[in-house]
């Protein structure tokens, strides 16, 4: 399948309140591998066992929980420059982050703020990790996956103002498309699911007055059995469950939402349909959103939509 300009969300930096406890969750419970630490000890880089690139998640010790930024990998250095010019033409101011600046293994990145108040970055070059999935007569893993057995960082849901502009930006500049949307009764966008690949979403937005919020960070699991395994890990470790296990009608994914120890919401997700840019868009009315999100109960969980970090 020919991907559009943006390959995938490849890196997120998350703020945590208690680095040791939260790192323990990401490593031993979610199942990510620690890749490296900053010399001041305040940031830790992690990757999932089935990812090739150097790392995909950086935790930063901070006095607030939430999201520092998300970074998208684009498919060539030439494309990176072209997209950068389009970001400027769209009206956003660019900051240049030199190679190896604060994310080991990463080449040059461009950073900018979109309408919803989120910091976005783009890059094309990143080193392969020391331990990647095998590629020659490959086995399915080299070390047995731990805990919830997350295979990759998959997507995120962002909350902020003016998602109509964010949607236009992702389509026009990143070359993404929106397999699903949700509109209010008066016809305004309440939520949009966007992708540059054939995952049903690389990211999603919900309209919200406060800028720069994250609703959840999603990690991919293999199947429904692994969703059940993840629920066991939540229960055994007394993590705070939010919703699930259930199915989304939107994206068709199988899912659980819960909170990591610093109060960032995590989703573990499996399945989902294959999206194609030529497929007709699926449209939800906001009064059906309960069924769209929590297909089995069909009912909205108020705290799910309202509480963000």
């Amino acid at each position, binding site marked *: 399948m020919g991907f559009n300009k943006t390959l995938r969300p490849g890196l997120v930096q998350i703020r945590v309140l208690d680095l040791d406890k939260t790192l323990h969750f990401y490593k031993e419970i979610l199942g990510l591998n620690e890749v490296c630490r900053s010399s001041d000890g305040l940031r830790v880089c992690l990757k999932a066992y089935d990812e090739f690139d150097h790392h995909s998640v950086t935790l930063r010790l901070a006095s607030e929980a939430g999201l520092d930024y998300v970074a998208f990998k684009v498919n060539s250095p030439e494309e990176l420059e072209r997209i950068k010019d389009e970001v400027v033409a769209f009206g956003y101011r660019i900051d240049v982050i030199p190679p190896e600046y604060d994310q080991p293994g990463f080449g040059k990145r461009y950073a900018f703020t979109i309408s919803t108040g989120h910091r976005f970055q783009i890059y094309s070059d990143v080193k392969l990790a020391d331990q990647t999935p095998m590629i020659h007569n490959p086995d399915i893993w080299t070390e047995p996956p731990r805990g919830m057995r997350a295979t990759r960082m998959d997507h995120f849901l962002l909350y902020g103002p003016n998602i109509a502009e964010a949607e236009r930006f992702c389509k026009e500049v990143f070359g993404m498309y929106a397999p699903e949307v949700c509109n209010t009764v008066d016809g305004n966008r309440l939520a949009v699911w966007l992708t540059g690949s054939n995952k049903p979403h690389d990211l999603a937005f919900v309209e919200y007055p406060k800028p720069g919020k994250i609703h959840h960070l999603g990690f991919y699991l293999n199947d429904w059995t692994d969703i059940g395994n993840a629920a066991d890990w939540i229960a055994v470790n007394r993590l705070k469950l939010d919703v699930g296990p259930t199915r989304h009608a939107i994206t068709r994914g199988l899912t659980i939402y819960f909170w990591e120890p610093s109060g960032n919401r995590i989703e573990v997700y499996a399945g989902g349909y294959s999206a194609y840019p030529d497929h007709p868009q699926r449209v939800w009315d906001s009064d059906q959103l309960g069924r769209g999100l929590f297909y089995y109960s069909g009912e909205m969980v*108020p705290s799910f939509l309202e509480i*963000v970090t």
Partner: protein
Amino acid sequence: MRDTFVITLNAGQESFLCGEDDTVLAAMLRQRRGHLRCGCFGGGCGICKMRIVSGAYHQIKPMSRAHISEAEQAEGLALLCCIAPRGDMVLSRVDGNYE
């Protein structure tokens, strides 16, 4: 033997018991008091913010400064998922945190 304290809410209309090593939020939800919305239990989302009218507590987790500044904490606000009681406590509501 661990100590248990009485936590009083809503100008004395409701109360519940909380052990010295339990978070006030966990005890409150288990005993179905307070009708606080349920959040992250990790000090990150700010949904469990209340005013500590009286009583000493022990902070067992960091609170996100996005939801409670040092000044607010100094004048008596706290995130209930981050604190355990040191004695009997009296709490009152903060606007916006109730269904």
